[in-house]
């Protein structure tokens, strides 16, 4: 395939030619040869990154100043890892003593054949300053927030969570920043779960209105280990998350759920890949998407069951709601089954509000805007229920704020 010349990549290369190490320059050149992913790449068929052409991709400078503060409305706990414009920021972070955190210069991406998603990884590798590894030691429990704050330019957070055997990690990842900042975040986050480990990963994308947020999340799940993932994409001009889960040993499990709200001209794209590589692994996916105005969204969810992965039990549900004629959401549920004794269900729907429900609410005296907002809120209910109460309250406050007639439906929030 002939690569599409990416003007932003050539510009950043010219700018950083003297600053980057030879290995990183080499990585950048490999990416330039391949180009950024485009809708011609199957994995990006619904996501068009051409708005990056006009942007400056150079990483923002590291370091916070005294005026840098975290947004007050985030649901932040006691311990946190803060990435300011892509750089791990010690001053803003607060880490529990049990945690081992190591930072090291980024090494090259050693993938042999490079997929479209890997190219985001190449971008991150070439332009991120350091790679951070967080180790949750055996049989310990850690809860922390992972905050990606954008105040300027582009950030390339790069992070691996190693959750050792029997350990539990609860992490709430939050992408945030001011509305007026034309930022890009291209984050690469890996989870390595040893036997019996649990990672509970909440991902809240509440970035500023002109932000582009791209996330490549990959989890490698060991024997009887669990990777849980709950997401809400509410902010940014465009966000795209790839969530890849490898269920590598018997009894490994995963549950992914999420919602997005693409109002105005916002775009939210989501791609999931669950790879059942071992027997007796359950996986579950529950996604709800809403688009209004000229908003766009997509859900592209694939489940691959390897030969020998018998006893696989996989469920996938993606329901999507269009609130205006100019909104669009595309879905593609895919199953690739190479084993025999498996149970897989999948389904994806996109439609508008149910007219019978709408009439029922009108017949009880609710005005049309309120009735529509109430039904939209209810549509998201299954996913909202999965969040902890504090996160749910935060997401509801943000999500309701984006719905028409938000103020009038608050009292329906049970």
């Amino acid at each position: 395939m002939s690569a599409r010349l990416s003007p932003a990549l050539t510009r950043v290369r010219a700018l950083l030619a003297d600053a980057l190490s030879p290995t990183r320059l080499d990585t950048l050149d490999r990416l330039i040869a391949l180009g950024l992913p485009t809708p011609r790449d199957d994995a990006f068929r619904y996501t068009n990154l051409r708005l990056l052409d006009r942007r400056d991709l150079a990483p923002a400078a590291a370091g916070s100043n005294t005026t840098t503060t975290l947004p007050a409305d985030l649901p932040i706990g006691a311990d946190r890892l803060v990435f300011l414009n892509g750089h791990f920021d010690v001053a803003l972070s607060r880490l529990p003593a049990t945690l081992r955190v190591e930072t090291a210069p980024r090494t090259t991406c050693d993938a042999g054949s490079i997929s479209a998603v890997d190219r985001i990884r190449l971008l991150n590798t070439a332009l991120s300053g350091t790679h951070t590894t967080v180790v949750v030691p055996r049989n310990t429990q850690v809860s922390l927030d992972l905050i990606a704050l954008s105040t300027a330019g582009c950030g390339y957070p790069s992070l691996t969570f190693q959750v050792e055997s029997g350990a539990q990690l609860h992490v709430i990842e939050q992408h945030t920043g001011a509305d007026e900042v034309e930022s890009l975040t291209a984050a690469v986050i890996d989870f390595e779960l040893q036997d019996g480990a649990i990672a509970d990963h909440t991902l809240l994308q509440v970035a500023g209105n002109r932000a582009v947020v791209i996330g490549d999340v990959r989890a490698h799940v060991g024997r009887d280990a669990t990777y849980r993932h709950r997401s809400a994409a509410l902010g940014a001009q465009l966000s795209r998350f790839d969530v890849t889960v490898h269920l590598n040993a018997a009894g490994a499990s995963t549950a992914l759920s999420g919602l997005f709200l693409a109002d105005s001209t916002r775009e939210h794209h989501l791609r999931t890949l669950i790879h059942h590589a071992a027997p007796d692994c359950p996986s579950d996916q529950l996604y709800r998407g809403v688009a209004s105005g000229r908003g766009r969204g997509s859900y592209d969810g694939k489940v691959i069951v390897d030969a020998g992965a018998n006893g696989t039990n996989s469920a996938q549900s993606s329901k999507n709601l269009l609130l205006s004629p100019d909104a669009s959401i595309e879905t593609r549920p895919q199953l690739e089954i190479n084993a025999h004794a498996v149970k897989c269900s999948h389904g994806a729907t996109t439609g508008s509000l149910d007219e019978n429900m709408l009439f029922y609410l009108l017949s009880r005296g609710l005005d049309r805007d309120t009735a529509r907002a109430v039904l939209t809120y209810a549509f998201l209910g299954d996913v909202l229920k999965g969040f902890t109460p504090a996160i749910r309250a935060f997401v509801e406050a943000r999500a309701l704020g984006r719905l028409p007639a938000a103020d009038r439906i608050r009292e329906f929030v049970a």
Partner: protein
Amino acid sequence: MTQIQRGDLVLDIKNLVANVAGRNILKGLDLTVRAGEVHAIMGPNGAGKSTLAQILAGRPDYEIKSGTVTYLDEDLLALAPEERARRGVFLGFQYPVEIPGVNNVYLLKAALNARRRQAGLQEVDAFEFMAIIREKMKLMKMDESFLKRGVNEGFSGGEKKRNEILQMTVLEPTLAILDETDSGLDIDALKVVSTGVNSLRQDDRAIILVTHYQRLLDYIVPDYVHVLAGGRIVRSGDRTLALELEERGYDWLVEGSSAA
């Protein structure tokens, strides 16, 4: 809002002609309902009974070809469904829809306050509302768990009908139209539902019962019984007409209608 007195005109339908999906269902229907009255509308399947109920509530799928519907001196057909509800028109649905995720109680509180705003009354707060709904739930023999559930979510057929009547007792409509409220009810549920409806029989209210069977009318005794067949009222009478229908069926009236 002026006080409604017994005998005041609540609903006046004149020569109503209406289509559904291009098919003519109502063919010149006349009906007058006054405050303090209970009217039963009976008739064979497909006669247009539910069509009439839905048109009065304002469902958009119906095309009104001609005729007038006056509700308390207003042109009912010119009002949006929500405006009708706020002015006291209540439809008890034949098939109440399940709305998962929308809390039953919050919907009902919003409905009551929409009605109260329209009437120039102060809205009730959550505390006052809970007192109201607990009393009505007792009347309808509904348990506490109901408060936490989504609108009709996972309700049995009987629970859905009971919920409709509960809503009616809270909203205290001026005109209640109950569409086949008795269908799918066992005898115990029928008694509970009837108690709820009878508790609302008052001088300032009119009730229209749409039903296929006379059984309901043993418990809610109507002042008038009408037979709707072929898109119009073909016979009106008192309660004995219902008993006669029970005995003779509808055929003799339907034939009489086409002969006339």
